[in-house]
C-alpha cells in the first residue's frame, strides 16, 4: 500500500511539474501591460527588470522554480494588491471560499444522502419518482439560475436576506460571525441544490444496486429485519463509492464556484481568478493556475487511495 501511495504521489508531482511548465510558458508569453501612470509604470518596469522578467523564458523559469524552492515565492501581485506576494494574495481569499462551500456541504451531504436512501428504499413508488424528477431538474439546471431564483425570492420578494455577501467590515471584521453567516445563506442555498441532487442520484443508484444483491437475501434469510439488513449490509457497501466522492468534494471546496462568487460578490479565490485575468495580473493568474491544477490532481489521487482504505477488499497496486 505504502509503495502504491508513494508511486502515485511521485507521479502526481511529475504531472504537476509538467503542467506548471506549460502554464508558465503560456502565461509568460503574454504581453505584459504597464499602468497608465508614469511614475508607477517606471517603478514596476524597473522591478520587472530586476526580477528578470525580460530575460529568456528558460532563465525566467529557472528563477521562478528557484524562488519557489528557496523562499516559497510564487511571484508578486502588481495590480490587485501592489507588491503583495501572490501566495499571500491567494491564501487571504481562501477562507471565505472555504467557509461558503463548507457550509453548503454540511447542509447538502445529509440531505442528499438521506433523500437518496429514501428513494432507493421506495424504489419505483411515487416517492421515488418525485425525487427522481426533482433530481433530474436540479442536476440539469445551471447553478446561476438557482442563484437568480434565490436572490429573487429571498431578497426582492420576501426581503429576508441581503442581496450579496457582506464585506468584512460590515460583518464585524470576522468571516465566522453570525451576521456574515446570515448573508452567506443565499450562496449556500444556491450551491446546495446541485450538490444535493448529485449526491441523491449517486446514493440512489449505488444503494439500489446493493439492495438487490445476493448477500441482502442471505441477511434476510438469516432473520434480520429489512431495516437491519439495509443499515448493516446494504448501506455499508453502498458507502464504498460514496465516501471517496465526498472526500473529493471536500477537496473541491478549496476551488470554490466561480459563478456563485461572482453573483454574490464573495471575495474568494474564484473572484480572484477573474480579477487577475481582467487586470492582467499575470503572476497571480499563474499562482491561481498552479493552485487549481494542484487541487484537481490532489482530488484524483486522494480518491484513488481512499478506496483502498475504505474497502479492505480493494488493494490498489498489488498483484
Amino acid at each position, binding site marked *: 500500500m505504502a509503495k502504491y501511495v508513494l508511486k502515485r504521489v511521485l507521479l502526481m508531482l511529475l504531472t504537476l511539474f*509538467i503542467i506548471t511548465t506549460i502554464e508558465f510558458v503560456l502565461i509568460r508569453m503574454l504581453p505584459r501591460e504597464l499602468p497608465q501612470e508614469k511614475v508607477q509604470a517606471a517603478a514596476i518596469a524597473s522591478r520587472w527588470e530586476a526580477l528578470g522578467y525580460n530575460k529568456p523564458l528558460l532563465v525566467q523559469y529557472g528563477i521562478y522554480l528557484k524562488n519557489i524552492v528557496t523562499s516559497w515565492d510564487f511571484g508578486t501581485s502588481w495590480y490587485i494588491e501592489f507588491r503583495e506576494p501572490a501566495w499571500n494574495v491567494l491564501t487571504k481569499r481562501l477562507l471565505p471560499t472555504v467557509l461558503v462551500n463548507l457550509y453548503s456541504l454540511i447542509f447538502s451531504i445529509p440531505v442528499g444522502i438521506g433523500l437518496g436512501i429514501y428513494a432507493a428504499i421506495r424504489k419505483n413508488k411515487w416517492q421515488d419518482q418525485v425525487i427522481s424528477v426533482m433530481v433530474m431538474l436540479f442536476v440539469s439546471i445551471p447553478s446561476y439560475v438557482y442563484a437568480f431564483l434565490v436572490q429573487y425570492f429571498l431578497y426582492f420578494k420576501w426581503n429576508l436576506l441581503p442581496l450579496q455577501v457582506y464585506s468584512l467590515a460590515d460583518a464585524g471584521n470576522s468571516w465566522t460571525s453570525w451576521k456574515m453567516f446570515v448573508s452567506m445563506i443565499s450562496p449556500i442555498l444556491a450551491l446546495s441544490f446541485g450538490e444535493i441532487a448529485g449526491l441523491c442520484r449517486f446514493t440512489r443508484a449505488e444503494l439500489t444496486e446493493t439492495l438487490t444483491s445476493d448477500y441482502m437475501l442471505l441477511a434476510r434469510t438469516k432473520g434480520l429485519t429489512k431495516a437491519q439488513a439495509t443499515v448493516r449490509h446494504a448501506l455499508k457497501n453502498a458507502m464504498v463509492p460514496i465516501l471517496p466522492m465526498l472526500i473529493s468534494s471536500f477537496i473541491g471546496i478549496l476551488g470554490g464556484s466561480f459563478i456563485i462568487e461572482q453573483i454574490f460578490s464573495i471575495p474568494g479565490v474564484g473572484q480572484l481568478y477573474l480579477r487577475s485575468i481582467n487586470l492582467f495580473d499575470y503572476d497571480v493568474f499563474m499562482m491561481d493556475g498552479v493552485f*487549481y*491544477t494542484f*487541487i484537481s490532481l490532489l482530488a484524483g489521487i486522494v480518491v484513488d487511495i481512499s478506496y483502498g482504505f475504505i474497502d479492505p477488499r480493494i488493494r490498489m497496486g498489488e498483484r
Partner: protein
Amino acid sequence: MAVKETKSIQLSADDFTFVHKGERITDKQFEDKPVSYMKDAWRRFCKNKASVAAAVIIICIVLYAFITPMVSPLNSRFMDSYYSKKAPRTRYISALGILDGGVGRDFSEKGLVRAVGIGVGAEDWAGTGQVTIGDALKSKYQPMLWISDPVEKMNAKKEVTRNYSGKIDVYLEVGFMYLSVSQKEYEKIVAYEKESGLHILYPLVEDNQWNADASDANNWFKTKKNAPVHVNEKGKGVVQDYSEDLILEDNYKRDADGNPIYYEYTGGGTLETAQFKVRALYYNYYVYKNGFEPYYFLGTDSQGYDLALRLAGGIKLSLLVAICVSVINFIIGAMYGAVEGYYGGWVDMLMERVSDILGGVPFIVVATLFQIHLSNQVGPIVSLLFAFVLTGWLGTAYRVRTQFYRFKKQEYVLAARTLGARDRRIIWRHIFPNSLGTIITSCALVIPGVISSESMLSFLGIVKLGSAGSTSLGTLLADSSAIWTNYPHLMICPAIVLSLLMICFNLFGNGLRDAFNPSLRGVED
C-alpha cells in the same frame, strides 16, 4: 390400505408412428425478421417516454432557432436603441391582455397624467384643445392599458395624495422625441404622412415657465412642478386634478396667427445640409422608418435587438459549438482509445501518461489561456472550440480503451486474426462496432456539458462574444445579470431555454445509454 385404482390407458399401434419420418428436420427460414443491435436499441429507446419527449423538445428548440430568423420581419442586426429592454409585445395575443408590451407599475397622480398625456398629445395632433383624457384613453397611442381606482393617502404634510396602479405599454411610453432631420427627410416624412394617414410630426413645444424640462418632448402641456395647470387671465397657473373630463392645456409653439409650428431651423447653410428640429411621435416614426409596427414577442434586449432573434442565434451557436465538440471528441477519442486499448503494453502506458497530464489541467485555465492567446487571431468561438477539444476527448478515449480491453481477447478477434486480418481491419471492422453504443452515449452526454460550460464561460466574461452577429445563451444571461430585476423577461427566456436544453439532453443521453445497454434488455418488460 386400499389399493388406488388406476385408470388404464388404452394404446394402439397407431400411436407409435414416426412423426418426422421422411421429412427434413433442418432449420427452416426465420419466420421473424432478425433484430439487429441498432434496431433493438431504437425499439428500447422508443419505449422510454421521457427520452422521446426530451428528443421532441430538443427538436422543437432547434426548429425554433432556425425558423424564427426566416419568418421574422427583422434581421438579427436590426436594433433600435429607443426600444431597448422592452417587454414582450405581440400583435394578435395582446387582446387577451398578455404579451401586450404592458408592465405593471404604480403611479402618482402626476405620473399618471404624464403617461396619459402622451395619448392625449398623440390624438390632439393639430393643437385644437378639444381632446379630453377620457377620449384619449381609447386612443391607439394611449400608453396606459389599464388604470386602477385611486387609493387616497395622507402624506407627511397632511395633504391627500392619490395613487394609482396600472399597466403601461412600454413602447408607447417612449412617446415623443425631438429629432434633427434634413429638408429632404422632412419632405419625405410629410409625404409619408399624407400617404398613410399616420401622424408622425407634432407641434414643437414652447420653452417657458410651464415647461419643466425643455429637452423632454413629452412635456407638451402646461405644468407647474410636473402637475397639469390651467393658466388663467392673470397668467397664474391653477393646478388641475386628474379626471376623465380634463382637457390638458397645450404649450405648443405657435406663429402669429395661432397655428402650431412643426419645425424649426437649427443650422446648416445650403438646402442639402440644412437641419431642422422636429418633434415626432416615436411609435409612428418607427413605423415610417421600418415599415412595420414594433412587435417583439420576446421583447428586446439591453441594446434594443430583438430578443427572439438573439435567442435563436444563441441556441444555434451553443448547439453548433456543442455538436462540433462532440464530433471532434468522438473522432479523436475513438482513435486514441482504440490504439491505446488494442496495443496495450508500453504504448498504453505512454499514452495514458499523456492523457493524465492533459486531464490534470483545469478546464477553466485552458479556456482562459486559449482565449487570451488565440481569440485575436481566430476569434473567440474557434478558440473556445480548441479549449473544449484539448481535454474533452479524454473521456471518450477512456471509454473506448475500456471497451477494447474487454473485446480484444474474444474468440471472434482471434478468428479474424487467424484468417489474416490486419490490425486496422480488426480494430475498425470487428471491435469498434461493438463499442459503438457506449461511444454514442458518451457523445450525447458531452453536449449538455459543453452547453453549460460555454454558457458559464460567457457568463463569467472569459469568453467575450462582443459583436451583434454572434451571441450565446450565456452571453444573453450575462447581459441581463445586472438589470434582470427590473426587466425580468431578459433573464427568463434564456434561462428557461438553457435549462430545457440541459434537462432534455441529459434525459436523451440517459435514454440512449439504457437503449444501447443490452444487459437491460427485457428487464423493463
